[in-house]
């Protein structure tokens, strides 16, 4: 068990170093291949990308397993009653990864999956950034980075005021952690000791311009969260068993908010997209490009 954990940590470190050097991470080398469910979710994302002819591919594909495990195994929710009082609150602060969330919400029945084909259409409800006014199951309108954590803190405080059992989960991007407001929020969450708040970081080690260490180095990242008063855990963000285990252990420390740093690969599931900044946001996606993406996912 211990040696397995050590091996995984070594693997994560190796992957991190490779990503930090700007190397394109070979798919499936550091992390296992994708199972069919993960592939199908990605194919639904491609459906959405084709619908809008565009989208943030890299940030969407790094998120899939995190959201899959949350919506399959962790969060309490009722698609028939999205504002059910007892539900857990999930906020996707890195709103540009919203296609992954749309696919999960559609699959769970929050809205008809035909909406995926109308991504970014004037008659659709699904935009390039999620809008809680329009989309059932979206808890906060995000897309401008650095907002979701503070909103989540307010909601966690409200849960504490009413002594509720529900929890708040906020997913950040690592690049998003360049924003000062994230660290204002981290200070506040630690100060309030919000045990009912979990911050999940999709740590794909790349942002729009390049690798996060080249643009604005975040390391030592886990230590930063610890220093701000969080209980911290790190996990392979594409390993669904490890993710389930990491969520099952929440909270990581009593009377502290939790931070789960998920080591992921930007663009995971399409070899050409992995760690490739040209795939941060893709335009002019036509049938042929979409089919090529689907073929790549299926062959992964």
């Amino acid at each position, binding site marked *: 068990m211990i040696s397995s954990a050590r091996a995984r940590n070594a693997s994560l470190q190796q992957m991190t170093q490779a990503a930090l050097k700007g190397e394109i991470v070979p798919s499936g080398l550091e992390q296992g291949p994708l199972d069919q469910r993960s592939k199908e979710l990605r194919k639904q994302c491609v459906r959405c990308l084709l619908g809008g002819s565009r989208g943030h591919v890299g940030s969407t594909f790094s998120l899939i397993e995190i959201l899959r495990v949350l919506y399959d195994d962790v969060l309490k929710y009722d698609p028939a009653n999205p504002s059910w009082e007892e539900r857990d609150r999930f906020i996707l602060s890195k709103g540009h990864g919203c296609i992954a969330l749309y696919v999960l919400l559609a699959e769970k029945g929050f809205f008809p999956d035909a909406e995926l084909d109308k991504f970014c259409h004037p008659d659709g409800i699904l935009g390039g950034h999620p809008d809680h006014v329009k989309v059932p199951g979206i808890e906060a309108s995000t897309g401008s980075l650095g907002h979701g*954590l*503070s909103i989540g803190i*307010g909601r966690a405080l*409200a849960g*504490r005021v009413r002594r509720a059992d529900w929890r708040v989960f906020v997913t950040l991007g690592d690049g998003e952690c360049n924003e000062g407001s994230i660290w204002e929020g981290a*200070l506040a969450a630690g100060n309030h000791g919000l045990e009912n708040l979990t911050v999940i970081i999709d740590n794909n080690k790349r942002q729009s311009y390049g690798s996060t260490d080249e643009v604005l180095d975040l390391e030592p990242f886990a230590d930063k969260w610890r220093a701000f008063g969080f209980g911290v855990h790190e996990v392979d963000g594409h390993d669904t068993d490890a993710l389930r285990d990491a969520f099952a252990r929440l909270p990581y420390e009593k009377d502290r908010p939790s931070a789960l740093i998920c080591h992921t690969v930007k663009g995971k599931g399409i070899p050409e997209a992995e760690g490739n900044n040209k795939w941060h946001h893709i335009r002019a996606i036509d049938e042929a490009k979409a089919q090529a993406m689907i073929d790549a996912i299926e062959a992964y």
Partner: protein
Amino acid sequence: MRKTCIDMVHELAKQDDRVVFVGSDLGVGTLDEMRWELPDRFFMEGVSEANMIGMCAGLATEGHIVYTNTIATFIVRRAYEQVCLDVGHADLPVRFICNGGGLVYAPLGPTHEAIDDFALMRAIPNMTIFAAADAEEMREFMPQSLDWPHPVYIRLAKGHDPIVTQGLPPFEIGKARPLVEGTDALIITTGITLRIARPALDELRAEGLDVGLLHLPTVKPLDRDAILSRASKNRAVVVVEEHSVIGGLGSAVASLLLEELVSPPSFRMIGIPDQFPDIYGSQADQLARFEITSERVATEVRSLLRRAAA
């Protein structure tokens, strides 16, 4: 006015358990009684306005009526995106109690002078803007703020401002308050400029000019009917505000009159010109520097009426 406002937050919180207060490193002792009596609903955050406003949005999303307080410029400038997106777009019941509207913080210079707050807040859909003339107007406003279904920007004046709302009809959010009706010229005020305009009104009427005064404590939504019905009966309209002439009440009234093709022959905005305040001193010093004074109001009205008669 600030004390009335803040004290009433505690009163409202006692009456309604949806009410919470969120401050940002305010003066020691602020709302201590609420802090001890209702500790679950009193939050004193650090010097971190962006986080504070997002937090307010989160609390309001969960059903709370959130009263938050700090210096105006930190709300309208530093945390503008949080105010706009987290609160404005979501149309949440957050009440921004903002210290030092206009030129109150004259001794501290341009960093703290909220000369553009109306303009910035007007541009946010769903936002209501309230600027009280005195503590009495604030006292009337606060209970109505409880169930107002939109965010509200509350501009506070200096404090210990004289009571100048005598003779006005009862306050109602979104409604103008006519003090005197006239047919020669209409003076429009908001916030403390009611105090500035009243002596001018008395002086002009003593001269035999039939001048009216319409006070607008709610800058947004604008009481269009109240303005249009009066402007169309007058030969001149003068708007006086403690704000930049760009984007404030004067701009709002000018746009309205032009859009509706109401044509008082003469129109004037009295406010802060397109510049940062460039002297220290007191609020009164700054108001004098920018000629936001009773004398100027009277002079402009006379001048406009002369021009209209020519």
